[in-house]
């Protein structure tokens, strides 16, 4: 194993390091008598930290340093270290020039004196017990120290970077073919878990073959041949883990000193930050929002990239002064925006407002801004988002317009209902009244033809009354104020059959029914439903066949439900009204429920074309569905699904 003992190697390390290194010697042998320390050596960093450019701080006493003021506390530590010969560590805030530096001092007992190292500022004080030595002797002593292995290793190992010394290997043509690692400090252990001894003596190729491919070899060669320092950042893999090392290569005599700092964590943080920023940017773009950060004490506002886009600009195209933002605000909204921000600037309250802007291309857009204030480092900031709500606002106003239209339509419908219920019925009632008086009082004096006309007037006005009544009940299905109750459908059927009794008797119709269930509903509506369905069956009959109506009832399983009911859950009861009447063509199965849809001419069968529409509406308002199935001249089948009682 090769030890580096070269004077210049050590000097290179201490001068090339970011740390201040200083030798100090006490002025007395006996610790009681010590009252100052002489700096016998200082590296470049120490010179720049504590000295000035005019003269070196070497051979000065510490308290006379141009930039070193508070000596008292440091003196105590140095004295105590000299006394105890043990290691001491302490933090020390030192005013250096205009700056307060927090320095961590480490004082260590050394073979020939005391080694003091300060990690944070990396200032090393090497104290020699010997005092009052003539200058020449001191220098000799320092040289002795400098070449001491122990000392070099301590300095190098207390260094927080990996330090290695590489010596070139030349091939037969005197061209560098590889480098030999002549020295590496034990910081390498932090990364690779390898002792330096394992590495020292290996070539770059042997230790990390990739170095000859990844450009590192070229960089090192360049450093060697040119003598210029080389900085590079590279990713390395140790134990399959990626590490990012920031490297500085310094030519030294016939080799290269390499300082390698592990920046993996920083790199990771940076990447994380980059990814997060990227994500934020994309999220803002997708959500059509922008964000801003505003130091409330200043006029400058920091905008996110997408905020510029929302205003129609390229990022940074627009200078981000508060006043500049106001220039885009719609003139009628400027006061509102000013007041809101002004309020927040004073009270630090949350701001939330919608205002209009004109973008660069003069498009009017609605923006919603929400900002919150917070304090950091004595300053107040507002962070917030600005959201483009143009589409929402437009949709909202469209919705409002639609609502207003719907309201109008509804009141039109109400007016129509009023007209239908009163104003239409009024003249109709009078017509019927006059007809009935003619019928009662004048019929005998009328010609047969007149009597025929009178009959026509009578049946037409009856039809009209039916129509009006049906229309009214159709429009009223949704308006029922009655709360649904438990309704026994057997009672419903009985009532309906009672009402239709005369017609059933006359036609001698055969009506049979299963036992019916109890459902939740509105009695008179369910009666209307049954009356319409049974009434239809009684109406659309074959002249020659006896009318047969069959009512079936069954609680259906989930599998038997029509698809449109599957999503509702809960059980259903299936009611079927089956007749042997004239039926209808299959293509009318859907159409048959449409309002004013009549499959037959008025002369063949009476009807207003509203009966089944009313049925459908009633079933729907009972959360069920109704279906029709028909075959021409064979019969019709209406199926009603109603929710079972819970």
């Amino acid at each position, binding site marked *: 194993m090769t030890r580096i003992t070269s004077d210049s190697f050590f000097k290179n390390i201490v001068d090339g390091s970011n740390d201040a290194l200083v030798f100090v010697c006490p002025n007395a042998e006996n610790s009681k008598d010590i009252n100052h320390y002489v700096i016998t050596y200082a590296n470049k960093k120490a010179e720049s930290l504590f000295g000035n450019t005019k003269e070196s701080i070497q051979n000065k006493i510490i308290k006379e340093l141009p930039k070193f003021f508070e000596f008292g506390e440091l003196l105590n530590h140095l004295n105590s270290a000299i006394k105890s010969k043990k290691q001491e560590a302490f933090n020390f805030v030192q005013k250096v020039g205009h700056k307060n530096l927090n320095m961590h001092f480490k004082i260590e007992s050394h073979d020939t004196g005391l080694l003091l190292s300060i990690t944070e500022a990396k200032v090393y004080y090497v104290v020699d017990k010997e005092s009052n030595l003539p200058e020449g002797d001191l220098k000799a002593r320092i040289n002795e120290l400098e070449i001491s292995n122990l000392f070099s290793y301590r300095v190098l190992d207390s260094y927080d970077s990996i330090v290695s010394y590489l010596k070139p290997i030349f091939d037969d043509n005197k061209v560098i073919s590889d480098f030999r690692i002549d020295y590496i400090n034990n910081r390498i252990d932090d990364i690779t878990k390898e002792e330096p001894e394992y590495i020292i003596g290996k070539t770059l190729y042997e230790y990390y073959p990739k170095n000859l491919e990844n450009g590192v070899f070229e960089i090192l060669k360049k450093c060697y041949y040119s003598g210029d320092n080389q900085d590079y950042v590279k990713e390395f893999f140790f134990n399959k883990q990626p590490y990012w090392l920031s490297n500085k290569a310094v030519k030294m005599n016939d080799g290269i000193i390499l300082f390698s700092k592990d920046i993996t964590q920083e790199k990771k943080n940076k990447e994380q930050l980059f990814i997060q920023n990227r994500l934020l940017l994309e999220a803002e773009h997708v959500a059509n929002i922008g964000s801003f950060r505003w130091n409330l004490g200043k006029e400058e506002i920091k905008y996110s990239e997408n905020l510029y886009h929302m205003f129609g600009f390229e990022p940074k195209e627009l200078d981000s002064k508060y006043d500049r933002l106001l220039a885009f605000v719609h003139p009628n909204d400027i006061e509102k925006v000013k007041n809101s921000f002004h309020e927040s600037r004073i009270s630090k309250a949350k701001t939330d407002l919608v205002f209009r802007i004109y973008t660069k291309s003069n498009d009017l857009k609605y923006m919603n801004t929400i900002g919150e204030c917070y304090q950091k480092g004595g300053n107040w900031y507002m962070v917030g988002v600005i959201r483009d709500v143009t589409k929402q606002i437009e949709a909202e106003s469209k919705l409002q317009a639609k609502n207003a239209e719907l309201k109008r339509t509804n009141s039109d419908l109400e007016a129509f209902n009023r007209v239908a219920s*009163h104003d239409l019925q009024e003249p109709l*009632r009078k017509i019927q009244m006059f007809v*009935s008086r003619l019928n*009662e009082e004048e019929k005998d004096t009328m010609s047969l033809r007149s009597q025929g006309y009178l009959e026509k007037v009578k049946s037409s006005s009856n039809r009209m009354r039916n129509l009006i009544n049906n229309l009214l009940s159709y429009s009223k299905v949704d308006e029922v104020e009655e709360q649904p109750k438990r309704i026994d459908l057997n009672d419903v059927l009985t009532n309906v059959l009672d009402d239709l009794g005369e017609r059933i008797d006359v036609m001698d119709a055969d009506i049979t029914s299963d036992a019916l269930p109890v459902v939740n509903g509105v009695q008179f509506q369910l009666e209307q439903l049954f009356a319409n369905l049974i009434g239809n069956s009684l109406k659309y009959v074959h002249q020659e066949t006896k009318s047969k109506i069959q009512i079936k009832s069954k609680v259906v399983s989930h599998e038997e439900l029509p698809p449109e009911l599957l999503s509702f859950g809960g059980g259903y009861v299936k009611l079927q009204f089956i007749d042997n009447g004239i039926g209808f063509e299959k293509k009318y199965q859907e159409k048959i429920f449409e309002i004013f849809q009549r499959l037959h001419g008025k002369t063949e069968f009476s009807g207003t074309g509203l009966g089944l529409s009313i049925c459908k509406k009633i079933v729907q308002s009972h959360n069920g569905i109704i279906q029709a199935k028909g075959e021409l001249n064979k019969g019709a089948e209406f199926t009603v699904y109603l929710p079972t009682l819970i």
Partner: protein
Amino acid sequence: MNKLKILLVDDDEDDRQFFADALEGIALNTELRQLENGKSCMEYLLQETDNPPDLVFLDLNMPIMNGFECLEAIRRTPHLKDLLVAIYSTSSAERDIEETFEKGANIYIKKPSSFSELKKSLKQVVKMNWAYHLNDFKKENFLLKI
């Protein structure tokens, strides 16, 4: 026996004629006075304090003062608060029936669409046992069933 004094308040001339003819047709001992709106009805009632009608038939939809307002005015007037008032209207809207019941009408007659039905209704109301009707007065009995 004194004639039953009936006051009909209806703006529709045809309806008044039907009413008068029907009343005549059922040949009861009645005396009919006809007025055209609520305002003239109130004026008449406040003037004829000594000779009030026995029964008022009140249409609802009338100009100047409608039947609802007139009914309220009648019930507000102390000496008229027990006057028998029959609502006589084309409307069969639940809302109207409810409202006139709340406002203190005594019976609700939906104007029929045949003359014979009208005669039947009038006969029923004129010959009604009011003491009995009002003794157990419920909403179910308010709308006249023929």
